[in-house]
């Protein structure tokens, strides 16, 4: 169980993971259960037509008439990304900086475990825990779609969940990297949160303001949500999120190896 820093990190999160997966699955259940009555309202499209265009654009309300469109609008374009990003940032900030602030890093890094390996193992634990959340999300959507007649294919459920995990991983990796560079959890959380908000604002404005639109592909939210995420297949833009995560972690490793570990 406690064989290395990776398994230790997974063990540390076991309760959090149970809580988060339960919460995510319940959310999916709630939304899915609403769908049949929404569908049967019939004049829903007319109702939505009266909504401001900005709102319809931002939350994909145009596709509200289908199960996929409904779930995209209700869950996958705001709430789910938010949850995955919060999980990723809080976990990433704790990985190195949290351990340094509590004082336990002192002994850990005085063992032959190298600073670089510690970062890699923590990044792997971050990815693995997000994969657990994404699997729970996938399972809930895949199982509940036929139950409530949402019409979401297994493949769509899988790629949609992958998009959430990648989004969480990108900002979680940023928090991990900033934490490894500064040794301060608050700084790691602040930088990653500001980056996430900025990225979302860029994505949202890109939808509403045509002058911003050319910059929109730079936003991880656009990369993840721009074409779905449910029903978009596996867009190549997903690769940018993984690549960005790898880059920030690779940048943090040499800095972390060279800097002094703070006395708590």
């Amino acid at each position, binding site marked *: 169980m406690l*064989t290395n820093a990776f398994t230790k990190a997974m063990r540390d999160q076991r309760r959090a993971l149970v809580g988060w997966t339960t919460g995510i699955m319940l959310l999916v259940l709630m939304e899915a259960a609403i769908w049949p009555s929404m569908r049967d309202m019939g004049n829903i499209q007319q109702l939505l037509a009266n909504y401001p265009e900005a709102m319809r654009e931002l939350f994909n309300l145009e596709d509200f008439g289908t199960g996929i469109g409904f779930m995209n609008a209700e869950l996958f374009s705001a709430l789910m990304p938010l949850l995955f990003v919060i999980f990723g940032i809080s976990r990433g900030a704790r990985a190195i900086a949290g351990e340094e602030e*509590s*004082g*336990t890093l002192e002994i850990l*890094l*005085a063992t*032959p*475990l190298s600073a670089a390996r510690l970062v890699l193992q923590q990044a792997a634990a971050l990815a693995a825990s997000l994969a657990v959340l994404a699997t729970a999300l996938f399972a809930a959507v895949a199982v509940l779609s036929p139950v409530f007649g949402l019409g979401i294919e297994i493949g769509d459920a899988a790629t949609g969940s992958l998009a959430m995990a990648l989004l969480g991983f990108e900002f979680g990796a940023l928090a991990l990297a900033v934490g490894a560079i500064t040794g301060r959890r608050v700084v790691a959380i602040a930088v990653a949160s500001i980056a996430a908000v900025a990225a979302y604002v860029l994505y949202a404005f890109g939808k509403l303001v045509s002058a911003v639109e050319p910059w929109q592909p730079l936003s991880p939210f656009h990369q993840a949500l721009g074409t779905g995420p449910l029903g978009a297949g596996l867009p190549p833009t997903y690769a940018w999120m993984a690549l960005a995560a790898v880059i920030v972690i690779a940048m943090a490793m040499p800095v972390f190896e*060279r800097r002094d570990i703070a006395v708590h």
Partner: protein
Amino acid sequence: MTDVIRTRALAKSYAGRPALRGIDLVVPAGVVFGYLGPNGAGKTTTIRLLVGLMRPSAGSAQVFGMDVVSERERVQRRIGYLPGDFVAYRDLTGEQYLRYLANLRGGVDWSLAQTLAKRLDLDLGGRFGSLSHGNRQKLGIVQAFMHQPDLLVLDEPTSGLDPLVQREFLALVREARDQGRTVFLSSHVLSEVEAVADMVAMLRSGRLLVVKSVQGLKASTVRRIDLTFAQAPPPAGLGAVPGVREVHQEGLTTHVVLEGSAASLIQAAAPYGVELIVTHEPDLEEIFIAHYRKDV
């Protein structure tokens, strides 16, 4: 035999403020080396440079002939380290924590960890968060010793330990030395170091003042001793006794400032019926000043 620790003009500054101002330290193999200095002298800074948690601002340090920066992990393989403020994971029991560290290091004989815990009277079943300060320190000692490192680096190891456990700890240190290991321990209390060390280095304001054998240090240490007599103090006073620097009479009690051995003093005082002897822990500052006076 090569030296275990060798530093060359080792210096460290924090945001421009010097904490260590270029020390040349040589620690031979197989000794207990006491690293003495008042708080803020740079003891912890030296130690954290040696175990690879910081990088020198200038100069270099070698442990077992390997550079602590470029060969950090290889050095760390052979070191057992107890920080001045040891902290483990609050939610792990002593056993879980030690097994985790043993797995990270590899090749740890688990029965040795259990033996160490037993000798220090530490229950490994309790979570770190619920342990008393003394028991936390014991766990810190076990994790430093359990992989039988060639060099033990211990920062103020006896803080928070009750006298009985302190004695057991000192026995562990002596055993390690007798097995050919080297022990580098810091303290701001002279008696603690005197009890176990073979050699002593004194540090003040980031500078190394003296490196001495403990014998040499004892011979030149100035102590304050109070002798209380049953009836009356010796009429001739104790001022003429060899080693006595100052005498101050106060009723039945004679306050003496003594340098070196107390043998002559006790001999001179004994016939007059000494009821009580109180010796005061020498203040490090006083020792430093005494050494300064001689060295200058």
